[in-house]
């Protein structure tokens, strides 16, 4: 099942039991939404292509006790209505969940209009916003459940496509907002969203060359459990961050802040999209390749960090 459908399915099941749950769509569908619309017509509202109004209406509903999910393409439901998110959701602390489909280059060939390559930076700047960036079925269900139980605004970035489940999440993982893959290692790659699969694939490849790579899946970007994160990161000599997002203000920036704040000595290399690689068209693979954040680039970066390969520069 696609990630967004798994998310919607979770909301659907909760909505069957709780008529306060309302799903607002900005004229945007999903296979998983068809059943919701058919079975719960009073709890589904198509507000039209109007993201600013969608967020204000969601806030008005939430203020009167509804639990609202507002749903659209990630690029539109963040940038178009950022002021509404700040003032109507965050400043009033209202329990509205933004279900944003298509992070990063998920809509690669559709071009910059549909690329959500700034959403983490923008949502991180919103005070009181919880940010989920799930990469598999387990974390997406955790995101949906957390969103429905939250007292404040929640942003969930939902990738397109189906991704294999990566295993259970412990109670500690839920608390921390991250999970760690791999055994003892000198190098750790911190990533988020569906990029975790590419990271784990790279870990398998470098293992064949005798390099151990730990992978940390930071599925909750905000609030960060900085203390727990710093404790884990302190165990490594070198850190890589990997994200399908602008290099300005996203995952890499968040990790860098933790390193500085806690005085950690590990080296850091941020793998993210440089400014000159934004506003491009192309398949997702091609765009990642051009930006130096695809699978082979990750392998190269890890080997370089391990001293197995010289820097290309």
């Amino acid at each position, binding site marked *: 099942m696609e990630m967004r459908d798994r998310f919607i399915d979770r909301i659907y099941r909760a909505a069957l039991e709780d008529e306060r749950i309302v799903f607002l769509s900005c004229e945007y569908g999903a296979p998983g939404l068809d059943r919701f619309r058919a079975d719960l017509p009073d709890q589904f509202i198509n507000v039209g292509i*109007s993201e600013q109004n969608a967020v204000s209406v969601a806030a*008005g509903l939430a203020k009167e006790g509804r639990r609202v999910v507002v749903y659209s393409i990630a690029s539109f439901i963040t940038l178009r209505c950022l002021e509404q998110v700040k*003032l109507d959701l965050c400043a009033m602390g209202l329990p509205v969940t933004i279900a944003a489909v298509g992070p990063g280059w998920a809509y690669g060939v559709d071009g910059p209009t549909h690329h959500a390559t700034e959403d983490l930076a923008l949502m991180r700047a919103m005070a009181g916003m919880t940010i989920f960036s799930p990469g598999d079925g387990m974390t997406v269900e955790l995101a949906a459940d957390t969103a429905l139980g939250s007292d404040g605004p929640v942003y969930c970035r939902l990738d397109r496509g189906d991704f294999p489940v990566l295993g259970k999440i412990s109670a500690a993982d839920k608390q921390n907002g991250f999970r760690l893959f791999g055994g003892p290692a000198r190098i750790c790659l911190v990533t988020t969203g569906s990029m975790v699969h590419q990271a784990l694939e790279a870990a398998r490849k470098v293992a064949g060359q005798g390099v151990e790579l730990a992978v940390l899946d930071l599925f909750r970007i905000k609030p960060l459990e900085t203390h727990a994160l710093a404790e884990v990161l302190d165990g490594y000599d070198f850190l890589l961050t990997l994200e399908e997002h602008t290099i300005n203000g996203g995952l890499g920036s968040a990790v860098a802040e933790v390193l500085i704040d806690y005085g950690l000595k590990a080296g850091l290399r941020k793998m993210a999209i440089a400014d000159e690689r934004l506003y491009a068209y192309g398949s997702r693979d091609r765009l990642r390749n051009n930006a130096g954040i695809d699978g082979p680039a990750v392998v190269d970066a890890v080997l370089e960090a391990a001293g197995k390969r010289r820097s290309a520069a």
Partner: protein
Amino acid sequence: MQKNLTAKQLAETARRLRKVVLEMCIARGGHLASSFSCLEILVTLYHGGVLRFDPRRPDWPARDRFVLSKGHAEAAYYAVLADLGFFPSFWLEKHYRRGECRLGGHPDHRLPGVEVSTGALGHGLGLAVGMAMAAKAERVARRQFVLMGDAECTEGAVWEAALLAARRELDNLVAIIDRNRIGSIDYTENYTRLEPFKDKWQAFGWQVEQCDGHDPSQLLQKLDSLLESQNPAPGMLIANTVKGKGIDFMEDDPIWHVRPLQDHDLIAAARRQVEGEPLHGDA
């Protein structure tokens, strides 16, 4: 508990509160002209028996909901809320645009009697539409009101909300537009095309009334007509007003949107006028 004053008493209340608002703005700045533009509208809603509320229980669930979309008219709003006892009147002097700003430069949802924070334009109608939709979903009788500025209708989100409200048949929603024909630096029709304003709202599926926004008897009558209508459309009252109403040198002049009243002679003249004393022949 609610007030239920006659039109004559409402006019007198507005006259009394105009003095309060003037002193607030002389002391601390604030959008005086915008506040004077909508003072009779606010007084009619709150003192005229239109809104159902209880100042001792601001969160009384059955209360009607009001959104001041034009949040920059906060001085008038605070004067009305204080007059009704939502918070002590001394706050107007002690906490308005000062220090910790218990009464800030735009309304905050944490203030007793204020439903939602406003101040960025174009949000209020959407917020009100959401709140009205919630009332429909709960099948409760509470009414939803929102007071908008005319110049904020150049925000696209206003029309997004207008489209949705009509389709959802929000007959529990009444929007009022303070039609003073002035934005921040110019007359609206000099830079945009709101007119024919009534036709636009009607074309969007709203039931529209118009009246003199400084005449409580007309406001009461038109609001009553919209509220009692069997038409399932949301209601719109275009209240024709004068920006800066009550101070002759300020009336209908765009420069007074943000300009503070600082000149001693002008302050004296403004005070004389809101006191209703003769203009000429004074020192």
